[in-house]
């Protein structure tokens, strides 16, 4: 990994919702570059535009103004998403959003099916992915038979199925209990190390942000804009014990104070 190439480029990206007097300025012009293989965490209070920003990068929302490049390709042009750029992205949502009428395996392989891959090949790939995310043996189950943590694992596997370079995660562990959340943070770090993906993750948990991030982008609300960027240089792989180190607590304290001031 060189770390020099950029995976995502945002140049004066701006978002307005509505028009005229009712218009809401969701995101002020924002510049941000994410390097290949980097794990960037977007952190901020509700209404700071972090999810809006992520959904724009993910091609679910069109920026009102500005230039957005994914893997050196423009994502939006004249209101149309460019499929080529989109295939560089995999998205994971807060709700796992698995389809209950498909088995775990078919959910994971859904993107491949949409792209026209044959059944045997899909099954093979799904098997690799269940192994990667730690849910081997559950391929044939219905999704309702899985626990919350396992569903998120399956959702991550689905996003990785077509091997995109970038993983976008919108509060992926927000709905999980604290203990499962810790486990999933460790697991995400492992998966990230194994797959060398670029990850942009949205969260409102300070400890999750400090634990996972190479770089924390703190956003402030009304309108949403980048407030502070903090580099986290603690060595990897990080164990949960890292939370007890002075360095971790320093960063967490700085973030907490700043969050109180801006929200």
């Amino acid at each position: 990994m060189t770390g020099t190439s950029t995976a995502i480029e945002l140049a004066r990206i701006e978002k307005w919702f509505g028009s005229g007097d009712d218009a809401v300025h969701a995101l002020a012009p924002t510049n941000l570059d994410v390097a290949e293989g980097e794990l960037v965490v977007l952190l901020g209070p509700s209404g700071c535009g972090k999810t809006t920003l992520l959904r724009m990068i993910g091609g679910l929302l069109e920026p009102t103004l500005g230039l957005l490049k994914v893997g050196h390709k423009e994502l939006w042009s004249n209101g149309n998403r460019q499929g080529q750029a989109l295939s560089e992205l995999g998205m994971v949502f807060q709700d796992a959003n698995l389809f209950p009428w498909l088995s775990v395996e078919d959910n994971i392989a859904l993107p491949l099916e949409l792209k026209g891959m044959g059944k045997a090949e899909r099954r093979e790939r799904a098997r690799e992915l269940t192994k990667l995310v730690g849910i081997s043996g559950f391929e044939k189950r219905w999704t309702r038979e899985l626990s919350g943590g396992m569903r998120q694992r399956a959702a991550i596997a689905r996003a990785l199925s077509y091997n995109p370079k970038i993983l976008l995660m919108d509060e992926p562990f927000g709905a999980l209990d604290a203990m499962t959340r810790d486990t999933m943070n460790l697991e995400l770090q492992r998966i990230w190390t194994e797959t060398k993906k670029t990850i942009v993750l949205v969260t409102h948990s300070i400890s999750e942000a400090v634990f996972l991030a190479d770089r924390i982008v703190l956003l402030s609300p009304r309108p949403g804009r980048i407030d502070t960027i903090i580099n986290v240089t603690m060595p990897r792989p990080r164990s949960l014990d890292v939370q007890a180190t002075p360095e971790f607590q320093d960063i967490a304290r700085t973030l907490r104070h700043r969050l109180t001031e801006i929200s």
Partner: protein
Amino acid sequence: MSGPVMRDDDIISLPPPAARRKPMRESLLPWITTPLLVLLLIGTWHFYVTTTKLSAFILPTPYAVWEAWLGLLQSQRAWNNTLSTIYVTVVGFIYALIIGVGLGVLLGRIRWLELTLNPFVVATQVIPKVALLPLFIVWFGFGATPKVIVAAVLAFFPILTNTVLGVKSVDTGHRDVMTSLNASRWQIFWRLELPSSLPYILSGMEVGIVLAIIGAIVGEYLGGNAGLGFMLVSKMNGFETDGLFAVIVQMTLLGFFFYFATRALQRLLIPWHQSIAIR
């Protein structure tokens, strides 16, 4: 504190044996209570008729009804009539299904079309549809066609409204998944909207099939020389009260058959759904 720590992430453990046995017992309950209640009902009926010495024209004994029903089963004409009712019900229901689901998908997806057509859809619902039957007979004669139409018109509405509801109830998170995967409109329909609406459509079918039977039978009452509805009228005209009951029994069995057929379809098509998992 040592020893293995179990997380729900790692294992799906089996419930203790006692907890597993209980739902089994519960599901067996109707198999015992239903025959008992039916026996009780028939017993009361028999007792009432014999003690009050009621005329057989008013209420025949259960045994007389049983005999009449056995007679029905041996009569070729009765079978032809049953088949005729089945034909009208099934054909009418299939029309209702095709038009109801087709139109429902369009109305659920296209907002301006829904707004435009909604008054007419409501009108087809509030019109007493049976009142249209004489008109259909004038137009299409005394054959199967007017009855098929009445069966279809009756079954159509619940299928339509349920389909519209189903298409509109597609989870926005699921839509996000398909959008982020750059799925085509067609893929979104086949892979998301249709399977997601299927439980709604099937519950519309459950109501629709029963209404289709009603439509068929009412159609046969009024204009016809075939079907169980026609048979009912001729038994009434002949003061054959036991025969009347036998035809009602036959119709009820038909209703059960169709109802359980749609239930079986649910098990087949939406085995993943909560409503199936709980049963």
